[in-house]
């Protein structure tokens, strides 16, 4: 990778300062996507601002009926945390199946959603559970946060601090992994609760999306059987050497039924 200036700020303010002072700076969470990207010289920032030393960005708490996950909380912590496993087991299961154990020990929820990889799991969790992204400037509903392929609603100098998840009545996640990368070819988070009935799909399109026909079908009863007949169109879905759009559309149906069936 090309060289850069490394910063390890102690606070969000310092991070923002370092970023704004850089000619072409970037924030780093766990670095699980950023570092491989830099190694392949697909990006060459002048400055890397590591959020690993910022106090208060890591950890999980309950806040007004919501489960709040700090931006620098690792996937491994989310997967094993007592609050998450008790309140939103589907979220714990999702986090516990991201990447591999060593990746889960470093990768963070904030880094993942800021990157918004179309095949990442967390976008499905946030949209499928109706979460809210907290930044140093504002709160953003998940439905508004993920705006497109590797794009989010984050503004310049905006730093994710936490994600707040409402506790669903029932939620389940099912993932069909790419056999090689183990990213989601299709991942579906289905839930019902205070955020309504939601079916969020990752991996299949350019960006996470809600399968509205399926959400309607589940309106009459949150069961896998209710989904029979509901489908998504293959139009606009991803097509690559691993899965055609048609196959992905089919898998969305299968994974949605499995997600609902898995919902506790």
């Amino acid at each position: 990778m090309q060289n850069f200036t490394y910063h390890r700020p102690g606070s969000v303010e310092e991070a923002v300062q370092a970023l704004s002072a850089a000619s072409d700076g970037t924030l780093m969470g766990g670095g699980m996507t950023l570092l491989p990207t830099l190694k392949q010289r697909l990006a060459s920032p002048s400055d890397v601002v590591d959020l690993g030393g910022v106090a208060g960005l890591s950890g999980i708490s309950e806040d007004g009926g919501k489960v709040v996950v700090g931006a620098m909380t690792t996937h491994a912590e989310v997967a094993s945390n007592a609050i998450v496993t008790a309140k939103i087991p589907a979220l714990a299961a999702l986090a516990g199946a991201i990447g591999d154990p060593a990746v889960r020990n470093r990768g963070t929820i904030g880094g993942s959603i800021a990157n918004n990889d179309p095949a990442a799991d967390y976008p499905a969790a946030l949209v499928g559970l109706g979460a809210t992204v907290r930044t140093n400037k504002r709160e953003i509903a998940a439905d508004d946060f993920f705006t497109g392929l590797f794009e989010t609603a984050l503004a310049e100098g905006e730093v994710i601090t936490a994600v707040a998840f409402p506790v669903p009545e029932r939620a389940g996640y099912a993932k069909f992994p790419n056999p090689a990368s183990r990213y989601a070819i299709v991942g579906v988070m289905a839930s019902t609760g205070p955020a309504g009935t939601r079916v969020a799909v990752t991996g299949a399109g350019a960006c996470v999306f809600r399968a509205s026909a399926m959400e309607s079908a589940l309106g009459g009863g949150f069961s896998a059987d209710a989904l029979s007949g509901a489908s998504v169109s293959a139009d606009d879905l991803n097509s690559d050497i691993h899965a055609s759009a048609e196959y992905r559309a089919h898998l969305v149906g299968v994974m949605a039924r499995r997600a609902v069936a898995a919902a506790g």
Partner: protein
Amino acid sequence: MPTVSMTVNGRSAAGEVEGRTLLVEFLREHLRLTGTHVGCDTSQCGACVVHVNGKSVKSCTLLAVQAEGAEVTTIEGLAQNGELHPMQAAFKEHHGLQCGFCTPGMVMSAVDLLNTNAHPSETEIRDWLEGNICRCTGYHNIVKAIQAVAQGQGG
């Protein structure tokens, strides 16, 4: 150039690095601890797995400066007083290695598994090893070696 200091296998280690220096480069090139290997450039093969503060991480996907102040254990630090760690002994006993290239990362991952889950099922072992690729063994004997340690019958 930034300086970095950490504890590696119980000894303090420090050096001047570039921002871009990876932990694995620091270990291999600065400290000459060449037991930690690099098998890919997309953070998937796991040949570079070491423990940072007791947890397995991919040292090819961590900057040396990110490990500032950390406790790092590499494959060289696993055996104590000339005695193989039970996981190392079990890999030998059950022929869990052939060419040996993936082995350091595989062993470090396996140790972390049993630290996290002392009695994993076969499925849990196989799932855990998702981030460690071996081309030689077909994993059969690696799984056996880990099971043996979990059952207290390592080497």
